[in-house]
């Protein structure tokens, strides 16, 4: 028994006793039991609000679409999956799942290809720019707080508004960025944009990417910045004395230490980018840039519940594949 005593020891009330016994019960759990105990609240919530709906949606994905009275048709097992992947259902979708030919046009018309293009390019640029932004914010300088506000601002913008900004910016005769064929704007002259970029799958995808980079780079920057701020400054002293230049300190100390954070940021950005919907819908419309989530939402709105659920699960499966790239990289990096 401990000899420690509380001064002015309050008489132990029943509550206190209960509390104490709960605490001691918790303290005596094995590491595994304790781990599961702490995870319980999160999993209860996730179970009810995430896993259960997913299961029920999965069930839905096994039913045919219905265009009549009922909300879903017959049970057809994995029929929806087959139909969508083979392209059998393409006619009922705003755009096919896989490219139907090996042309650029077909690629930009395929939900999968567009999504992958969007994801790879936007996550790439977000990471790089986010890194540089974080490096800038990690410096001490006057007005840092305001620069930080400026960098966060895009991220605080609701998607509707973000979409509106970019939609209008690239609207001929309205925004500043697009001209007409007689009176081309700067970007048109450079040949970077057609005069009707939002109707053009390629241009519209790029605009969506720019819009996404503009908005979500802050996400990267904030996370990376947090990672940088948690690094023990003493390590930089060691590195300096060992002869590391600023770049080498970054390369050997900062970068590897924040790598896990960067990976998490990239991982989630990739996942989010692969689910892009609102941005595309508001900037160019899902018909022009058909992302995977566009298909999910469009089919859902069109009451093709089975197809919608199926595409949702296919999307998730594709994301899972993308994620496994990170996980493999992470495991490799961790060794």
């Amino acid at each position: 028994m401990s000899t420690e005593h509380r001064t002015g020891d309050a008489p132990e009330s029943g509550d206190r006793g209960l509390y104490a016994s709960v605490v001691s019960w918790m303290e005596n759990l094995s590491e595994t039991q304790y781990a599961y105990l702490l995870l319980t609240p999160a999993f209860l919530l996730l179970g009810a609000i995430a896993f259960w709906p997913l299961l029920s949606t999965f069930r839905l994905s096994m039913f045919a679409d219905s265009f009549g009275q009922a909300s879903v048709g017959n049970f057809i097992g994995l029929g929806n999956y087959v139909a969508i992947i083979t392209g059998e259902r393409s006619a009922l979708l705003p755009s096919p799942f896989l490219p139907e030919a090996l042309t650029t046009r077909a690629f930009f018309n395929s939900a999968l290809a567009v999504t992958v293009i969007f994801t790879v390019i936007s996550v790439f640029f977000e990471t790089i720019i986010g890194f540089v932004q974080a490096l800038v914010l990690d410096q001490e300088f006057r007005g840092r707080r305001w620069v930080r506000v400026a960098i966060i601002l895009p991220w605080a913008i609701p998607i509707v508004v973000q979409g509106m900004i970019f939609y209008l910016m690239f609207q001929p005769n309205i925004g500043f960025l697009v001209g007409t064929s007689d009176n081309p704007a700067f970007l048109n002259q450079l040949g970077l944009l057609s005069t009707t970029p939002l109707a053009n799958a390629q241009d519209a995808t790029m605009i969506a990417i720019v819009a996404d980079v503009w908005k979500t780079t802050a996400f990267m920057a904030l996370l990376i910045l947090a990672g940088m701020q948690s690094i023990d400054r003493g390590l930089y002293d060691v590195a300096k004395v060992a002869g590391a230049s600023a770049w080498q300190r970054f390369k050997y100390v900062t970068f590897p230490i924040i790598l896990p954070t960067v990976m998490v940021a990239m991982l989630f950005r990739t996942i989010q980018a692969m689910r892009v919907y609102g941005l595309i819908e508001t900037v160019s419309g899902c018909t022009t840039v058909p992302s995977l989530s566009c298909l999910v939402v469009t089919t859902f709105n069109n009451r093709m519940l089975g197809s919608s659920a199926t595409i949702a699960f296919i999307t998730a499966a594709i994301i899972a594949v993308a994620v496994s790239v990170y996980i493999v990289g992470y495991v490799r990096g961790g060794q």
Partner: protein
Amino acid sequence: MARVQLENVSKHYDDVTAVNDMNLDIRHGEFICLVGPSGCGKSTTMEMVAGLTKPSEGTVRIGERDVTNLPPKDRGISMVFQNIALFPHMDVYENISFGLRLRDYEKEEIDRRVDDAAEVVELGGMLDRMPDEMSGGQRQRVAIARAIVRDPDVFLMDEPLANLDAKLRVHMRTQLQRLHRELDTTIIYVTHNQAEAMTMSDRIAVLDTGELQQIAPPLVCYNEPANLFVATFIGSPSMNTIPGSVTDTGFSSAYGDVHVEFDPTAVGVTPGQEVTLGVRPEDVYSSDLRDEVAHSTQAVSTRSDVLEPMGDEIFVYLVTEDVDLGGSMEEGSDPGEILMSVGPDSDITEGQDVDVVLDRSKLHLFDENGDAIAHGLVETPGAGAAGEAEAEGDD
């Protein structure tokens, strides 16, 4: 009551066994020093007592209670960590008072205690500093204050004074001893400082590669080391170890001509057996002083190689034979080399021929496995010297 017992405790990491089948029984109120080479498992042992590391096997008891599965907070311990581990986000006051605040002490009581503890570690005016604004020694003292501000049953201190200068160290040492007396606690203390281990502890536990080598009062460890490891580990500079073999009439060294005469059967060795002779530097005398040594061996002729003046004494490295002396300065126990300590007024110079004698009452004999065979090789074997040592150790 804070008896601390480790029963067959082991700790295995993936590829290392940090602690192996350790048995320790520490009485209430005892002051135990854990010593041993770097990486021998001292910190791991402490962590198991504290409850921070779960033993792979075995039982830990504190005050007769099995605490193996009890969390640290319920073990009635406080600890000074080897790596100091101050909370970087708290100032000194908050660091020191952390444990008290957790226990809902009253504000005045906390303030009083923190002030006291800060006084003890001489950090009076620094209560509102942050850890990163302090020097290494100051941080360590905060860590000590954090531990002593509470009054637990057992103090665990892992090299609490490593970063302090000699003077402050002595000061802190006496403060800790006073605390020990006043609070009537059990203290387990890791130190690399021989003086600390010798002066502070009731018993010293010597560890090597995770195994307990000897646990005994300091002078017993010093005078009657259980094995070669303890013999060379305790005492600085280290004991001279002279490999050799038993002859019909005593011991004869493998290098140089160190001969000690004794009756092998009385000691319990057989002629021809490979043994190691141990002698501490301070038991090596210049043969001029032979008369002062009650039981001296016959003279050994050596040459002084290197002199290390230490202020209050001089270490003289003696070569008994022209063997390879490549790394000779490294350790006193190189075969063929003997380290002698002499007073600061000695007139020995480097490269001079020196004849030395050993004090036979202070010689140690170890078998092939390094286990001690005898301490003191005077004609009447062993007993006298051992008794003497014990008497000293008890006070």
